[in-house]
């Protein structure tokens, strides 16, 4: 009986010890990790919408919604965090800045696991610029040269990534419509 019990006890002891070490490390780092996440999100928001002096949270169909206000409290625009599914390696989370007229003013990809050199190129300014300032209800992805205002040229070898980003931006535009529906034209 002892021969069978000792290995079990040792394994149990190892597991308890390791759990204690991991719990301790978590205790030391959990706050910093959460702080990092919030900080990087806030920083991205400020970069996307420099005219806003502060942001208030709101609720729409988007994952996260922020209304950008200037010093006088007037709405400058909106920032949405939305997720496009169907990327090459899963979801692509995009933060989109949309002005009060519903036009995209900028976007950043804040979470993705796309391939370096292919899908990751969606982070490049050249690609993201395509979405900015276009007066269209929704964007679509095309492989060749775009012919209409709402057409986005897909990244070479990364059509799935392009589609996921576009889906996220379209979700942001839809969320913007939900908010501005009640606002009078400026």
């Amino acid at each position, binding site marked *: 009986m002892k021969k069978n019990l*000792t*290995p*079990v006890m*040792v*394994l149990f002891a*190892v*597991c308890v010890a*390791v*759990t204690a*070490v*991991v719990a301790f*490390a*978590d205790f*030391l*780092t*959990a706050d*910093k*990790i959460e702080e*990092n996440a919030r900080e*990087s999100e806030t920083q991205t928001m400020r970069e996307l919408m420099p005219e806003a002096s502060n942001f208030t949270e709101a609720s729409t169909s988007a994952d996260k919604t922020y209304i950008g206000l200037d010093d006088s409290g007037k709405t400058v625009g909106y920032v949405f965090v939305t997720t496009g599914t169907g990327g090459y390696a899963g979801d692509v989370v995009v933060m989109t800045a949309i002005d009060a007229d519903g036009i995209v003013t900028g976007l950043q990809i804040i979470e993705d*696991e796309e*391939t*370096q*050199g*292919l899908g990751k190129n969606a982070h490049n300014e050249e690609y993201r610029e395509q979405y900015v300032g276009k007066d269209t209800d929704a964007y679509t992805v095309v492989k060749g040269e775009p012919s209409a205002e709402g057409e986005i040229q897909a990244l070479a*070898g990364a059509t799935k990534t392009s589609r996921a980003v576009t889906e996220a931006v379209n979700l942001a535009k839809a969320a913007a419509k939900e908010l501005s529906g009640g606002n009078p034209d400026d």
Partner: protein
Amino acid sequence: MIKTFTNGILRENPTLRLVLGTCPTLAITTAALNGVGMGIAATLVLVCSNAAISLLRKVIPEQVRIPAYITIIAGFVTVVQMLVKAYAQSIDETLGIYLPLIVVNCIILGRAEMFASKNPVLPSVLDGLGMGIGFTAALVTMGAIRELIGAGTLFGITVTAGSIEPMVLFILPPGGFFVFGMLIALANKLSGGGNKKEFGCMGCAGCPSAKTCSEANGGGGNE
């Protein structure tokens, strides 16, 4: 002692000679900087787990050694992951899922089995350090080659991207296998070859895959 340390750098380089941990190697090496991040994280885990397992080698019974080793390794990887997420976020982003996957990186479990469980603490730590440095060197070399030819940059700095069209194939899987094969050939040449006996191969009898291995069942062993 020094020999234990330098062993892992070329003669028994875990990636190019022992051919361990090939999955993260192929996936991570699309850029040189990725190799640095992964190499450092893996080395940290390797040194810590080798030390811990060596300390406990007389205490952990044979029957539960694999679950015990994996639990210890997983514990260290989790701690490293938390530290990276808190203090080195950029590494977390580039490594993505391959950071937690260090738990099943064969190099770590392999060295625990082959070395740390049979040797005292200081040699085990040196072995871990040497193997980690060898792993990092292999990753950075492979990453640099693939990045330079496949994207025209090196450590993110544009070198040829402006003038020569990069061969994207090199940052895709086929390119990875090709560069990997070439580096293995080079490493074999530089270290003068060597037979499997030196690596502590236990022969077919001790190998967990013996039942399904065609070589073990059909022909002789691999002594």
